[in-house]
């Protein structure tokens, strides 16, 4: 049995719903996005978030502390958590993570912070902290992940990242590609069975088939009762909008509508997209490596 399950996934790749589902297993505790691997110390994590317009720190971390300290997430308990965190700004993030894992013991933590995969440095920090952890590579079709990223940017009223060289907006499918390469390069260094890859579409389309397989890999219960609990992500204490000032912690769309929708998740055609609004990838010579990586994951 593992000490921690770390889900490695780029943003907009079903990570909130799939991680929450897995975290609902009776032997597991699904954390929201803790973002702890972005720094060596709590102070560094707070600074990282301050620079990104979140001076209170990672909302998922504040909600987790509120939940574990007070058993309830309210503005009061979140502010208490923030104070508690300030008093421990010199703690290493490893010490803080160990603290959280001790609090949830004997349950096993399920970590999912999409920011972790944005640089090899963050992934390597996660591994350095937890070399015995299990790593689950969660993937989603590049076209639907890209569409979801565009929707996210629109919804948040954010502007897309710009290429410093050209000044043009960077297509999110490049983020999809780069983060998966980061993950694959890392997983290729792991011993057998410490890392596996799963398609988010498979989990959502057939949870009864795939969730017990994830449990089997982790060496935890695979019975129907456990699987049934995993099929109800909406019962997670983090599957809703949090109290001010920690409203986030998971994907906003998921928190607004966390119940699993039955039915097969469709996979779009990469070739059609490359003939359409992703045609720039063909013109810029990016398409072959994108197709190759998508094919490796089972996407067409």
């Amino acid at each position, binding site marked *: 049995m593992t000490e921690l399950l770390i889900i490695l996934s780029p943003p907009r790749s079903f990570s909130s719903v799939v991680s929450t589902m897995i975290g609902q297993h009776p032997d597991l505790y699904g954390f929201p996005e803790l973002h702890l691997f972005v720094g060596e110390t709590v102070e560094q994590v707070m600074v990282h978030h301050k620079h990104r317009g979140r001076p209170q720190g990672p909302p998922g971390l504040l909600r987790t502390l509120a939940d574990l300290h007070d058993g309830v997430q309210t503005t009061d308990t979140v502010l208490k958590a923030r104070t508690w965190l300030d008093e421990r700004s010199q703690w290493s993030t490893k010490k803080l993570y160990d603290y959280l894992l001790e609090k949830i013991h004997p349950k096993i933590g399920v970590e999912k912070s999409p920011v972790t995969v944005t640089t090899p440095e963050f992934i390597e920090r996660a591994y350095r902290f937890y070399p015995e952890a299990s790593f689950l590579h969660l993937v989603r079709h590049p076209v639907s992940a890209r569409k979801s990223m565009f929707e996210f940017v629109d919804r948040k009223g954010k502007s897309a990242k710009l290429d410093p060289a050209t000044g043009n907006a960077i297509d999110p499918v490049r983020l999809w590609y780069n983060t998966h390469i980061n993950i694959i390069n890392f997983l*290729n260094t792991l011993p*057998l*069975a410490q890392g*596996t*890859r*799963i398609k988010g579409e*498979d989990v959502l389309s057939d949870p009864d*088939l*795939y969730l*017990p*397989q*994830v449990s*089997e*890999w982790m060496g935890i219960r695979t019975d129907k009762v456990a699987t049934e609990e995993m099929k109800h992500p909406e019962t997670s204490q983090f599957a809703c909008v949090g109290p001010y000032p920690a409203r986030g912690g998971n994907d906003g769309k998921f928190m607004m509508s966390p119940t699993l929708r039955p039915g097969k998740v469709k996979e779009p055609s990469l070739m059609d997209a490359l003939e359409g609004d992703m045609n720039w990838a063909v013109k810029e010579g990016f398409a072959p490596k994108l197709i*190759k990586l998508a*094919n*490796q*994951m*089972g996407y*067409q």
Partner: protein
Amino acid sequence: MVSVMTAQALTEIGPKDLEHPVAQSASSVTLFQGTLFLAALYQAPSEGQACGALLKYDAASKTWSSVYALPEMGGQAATSSLGVIGDALYLSLAAGDKFQLLCSHDGATFTPVPLAEDGVFSLNRAVSLSGKIHSLPLLFDEESGEWTELPLIVAAADTAAVWEEVSTAGLGDVQNDSIAQLSAFGDTLYVATANATRGFQVWKADPSTEVPYTWTQVLVNGTFKFTAAETVANFADFKGNLYFTSGIPTVSSTKLQSVEIKQPELIRLYPSGEWDVIMGSPRYSPSGFKIPLSGMGAGFDTPFDTTFLSLVAHGDKLYIAAQNGGEFQLWSSKDAEDWEPAVETEFEGKVMGMQVALSTPFGLVLMPAIEQEEEFNSLELFLCS
């Protein structure tokens, strides 16, 4: 490992042969009526003629003798295939756009086999089942100047008969690039396709039924390794199950009959259609979570350094010929799960492939393709007994 034949040994056969280096990649080996036969192709640059000899090996005296001088094949690079169909030994020779098929019932005298129109087929792919020969049609590609296999399966009552198509091209899937392997398993014909978009597929058909056969898809998506399992390199019928190696074909692969694969995995296919990963990475699949039963990942746990050259059942063991960082390895297992090195040997030059891996009554015969500076290298044939 004992060398039964080297370039030096070959030179003892006759003065004429001494003058001609062997085109090893064009030569072929088979077992017929308990005797090992070798079609050795030579190249005589000064004369500009491809030629060669059929030799047979006497296991008791450990000597080779020439039994047949191969017909001249013109000035172009030639290739040979040896195969046994029914009670006859067949030899096919291809040079340029010329293709000859010869047949012998005694291993000494050969007669040309007249081929029906469009009847050129891949002899080394031939599988006899239900009183019919199954193979792949060959087509001469003017652009590459080589004979290439068409991605469909044909069958005929005998080699001179008109071949009938028993499958559609690519088994009806346009993304199937080629037919990677054919194999008889019990009374059933099994076929693996190479697919660079979604990973290999395995299909089966009952050859006793009317043509075209009804094909059943057995495995898809490279057993859910997708394009990391683009093709199947070898099938081996071993102790009641069908085993195969799968992976990514290496750039150096030039002959379809000896495909070397990177990130190589070993899969066990049961007659029921169920399957297990024996060596390879764990994966999620519609038929459950698969963990490697050998406890090893791809390529004996070194997936990026190991290339599988061949898989063959011999005696009560399954053998895998591999190379790891240029070093040749031969592994064996009695149950396909617990593997041990069968031999330790070093070759002068990097082993690039395995031209032949053949089970014979007197041992496992291997003909490795060894990287050498000369285009026509020495012919090295080994016996592992």
